[in-house]
């Protein structure tokens, strides 16, 4: 049979005669006869009517090219050369192995690391925690202003928080410090150094001290249960996974950078529910009604509806559905308890940072049915 043969030493093909012997292919060019064992061959066809054979290893550059209407003869003596694998197409086993590897990596990073986030976060050196806190503070300072007139209000809130934590024996009670910040949105959040930031707009959103106290209790619970650092570990794990698997320096870094930025401090739904539950335990232990936080959840919902999903502050929008949380808190509410702050203290707190700058969306809504003011 006629074929073309390149010897790999010059960029030309020579005319050749080939013979499909049972164990080997015999190529005759002039006086020379070359023998190739079928087991050593692979195909690199041109997909345009020509079969191209070469020796796999070592690849000397020798090539044999002949028309593909001879493939039946080739199939008869070397059926393995008819399989896609002979042309370098990977088998199903490779694809399954890749899927297993990829999803195992995903499991390790996206499930394993979150699972081990708590001990990893607790094992993180204090220096790193401080560094992350510094980054968070630089973010806070970028969009909030310090209040010169809130010392007394700050002291009142810290005394209240300490009282709550003491009743529940919160180990971090001596390290937690609440700061009132001037910002254009209602929000409260805990930072890695056990600070809690409360914005003046959030204070303005509350119509009763128990509503604000409920929010503080929730943030204290985040700190006691180490949710913040766990979240940072989770986010970094996800970031590294996305960077390595996706092979680029984009998506993963965005996640990782977000993890040490304030915007990235979003908790999982489980962490939020945990903080809700633990926060209400504090309130119960301190003799404060959970009706206040129930009303605050209703207010969050009203705020979300009026402000629109795109404008919701991260700490509110990442929470589970406010209505469900309000129902859960209302179910635990007890009546006849004194407010967490007296009228004088509450007035001082409300005037922190000169009071809220503008009525926040939802502020002028009618009071929830549970009663907006007065002790429940």
């Amino acid at each position, binding site marked *: 049979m006629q074929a073309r043969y390149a010897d790999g030493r010059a960029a030309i093909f020579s005319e050749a005669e080939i013979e499909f012997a049972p164990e080997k292919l015999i190529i005759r060019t002039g006086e020379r006869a070359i023998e190739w064992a079928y087991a050593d061959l692979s195909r690199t066809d041109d997909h345009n009517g020509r079969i191209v054979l070469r020796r796999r290893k070592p690849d000397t550059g020798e090539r044999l090219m002949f028309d593909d209407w001879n493939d039946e003869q080739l199939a008869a003596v070397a059926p393995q050369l008819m399989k896609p694998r002979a042309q370098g197409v990977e088998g199903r086993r490779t*694809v399954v192995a890749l899927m297993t590897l990829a999803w195992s990596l995903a499991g390790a990073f996206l499930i394993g690391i979150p699972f081990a986030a708590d001990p990893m976060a607790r094992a993180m050196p204090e220096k790193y925690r401080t560094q992350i806190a510094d980054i968070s503070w630089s973010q806070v300072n970028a969009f909030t202003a310090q209040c010169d007139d809130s010392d007394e209000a700050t002291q009142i809130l810290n005394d209240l928080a300490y009282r709550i934590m003491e009743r529940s024996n919160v180990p971090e009670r001596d390290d937690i410090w609440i700061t009132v910040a001037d910002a254009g949105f209602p929000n409260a959040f805990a930072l890695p150094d056990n600070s809690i930031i409360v914005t003046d707009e959030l204070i303005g959103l509350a119509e009763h001290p128990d509503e604000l106290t409920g929010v503080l209790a929730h943030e204290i619970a985040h700190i006691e249960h180490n949710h913040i650092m766990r979240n940072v570990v989770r986010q970094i794990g996800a970031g590294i996974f996305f960077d390595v698997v996706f092979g680029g320096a984009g998506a993963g870094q965005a996640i990782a950078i977000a993890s040490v930025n304030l915007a990235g401090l979003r908790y999982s739904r489980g962490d939020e529910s945990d903080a809700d539950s633990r926060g209400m335990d504090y309130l119960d232990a301190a003799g404060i009604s959970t009706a206040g936080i129930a009303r605050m959840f209703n207010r969050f919902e009203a705020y979300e509806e009026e402000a629109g999903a795109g404008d919701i502050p991260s700490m509110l929008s990442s929470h589970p559905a406010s209505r469900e949380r309000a129902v859960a808190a209302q179910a635990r509410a007890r009546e006849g308890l004194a407010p967490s702050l007296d009228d004088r203290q509450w007035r001082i707190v409300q005037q922190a940072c000169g009071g809220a700058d503008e009525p926040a969306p939802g502020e002028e809504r009618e009071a929830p049915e549970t009663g907006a003011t007065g002790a429940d």
Partner: protein
Amino acid sequence: MTAEAAPSQTFAHSGKFFNVLGLALKNAGLTILTLTMYRFWARTSMRRRLWSRTWVLGDPLEYTGSAGELFRGFLISLPCFFLPAIFVFYIAPIAMEPVAAGWLTFGFYIFSVPLIAAARFWMRRYQLSRTRWRGIRLGLAGSAWGFAAASWGWWVLQTLSLGWYTPAARINRARLMWENTRFGDQPFQFETRNGESPQKGMWWPFAMGWFGTAIGGVLSFIFAGAILAGLTMAGLINVEDGGMMVGFLAIVLAGAFTAIAYFISFAPYRAAAMNRIAAQITIDGARFRLKAKTLSLLGFETLGWLFLIFSLGLLTPVAGFLQVRYILNRLELIEAPRFAEIGQSVLADSDAGESLGDAFDLDMGVGVI
């Protein structure tokens, strides 16, 4: 005794659009299912298909690379690039002083400029070393770091000249690449004829592109502002509720219009640069001629971008295929090298895969040849 095929043209690409699209879709599906780990196999199968349908003087190119090599290159790049990157972006911000971490990040980005150039060089070296024609291997000699350093210098000049050094930089890069390229033991040359400027015919199209982009950029901001003003007056956007969002939207819209202006304005330059570079490449006295035209180039590039954008990058190889086919079907060889005297390559095989080329995703999922 030689048996040269009798081609109707020197270069041709017989790849069919839907054939390539089908493979790209299959690869995209498996890439998603394997959380992108299949990308090395996808890239290899696509190259194999495109190479095998590329005909030079009637004989096909052959891609001999394997996905295992690319995967190994990726594993090599893990400690070389990803671990330092993970330290810079993940560990340093929490373990170092903020100022020091900031400088480290800045330094990393600065270092990335020559690193990307070196990665491009390594990638090309790998691809050429896995490309054969008539059994003869191509290759790339020279130093990747030498290319990186030179590229960095040209990049600085481009920046300082507000882009006006770009035509010279492009020719310089092409010269360095092609003068190091080998077909077997035969080097390519990159030279002008009759003392012509290497950038001949590139400056006017570049000037058109530069001024077109500048004017288009200004008009884009005016146009974006007019659209948003119209939407605001129609009551579809409330500026008071979302001032920042409107501002952001205006910048995005203007940026998109400017990018389109850039894309269109520089099309004549891109065609001129491709033609000029091809005209200066020679091998054993044979020359090349490329007949890229602005409108046809713009057409296939637009199609490629549409594929890229609407598939979220998954069908990028289709854009790569369009590019390869466009060039090959317009490329001619003037006179023929003495193929019988071109021997096998003596350059060492590249054994590190494409390493950083994957990290920077430099090749549209196809190749940079």
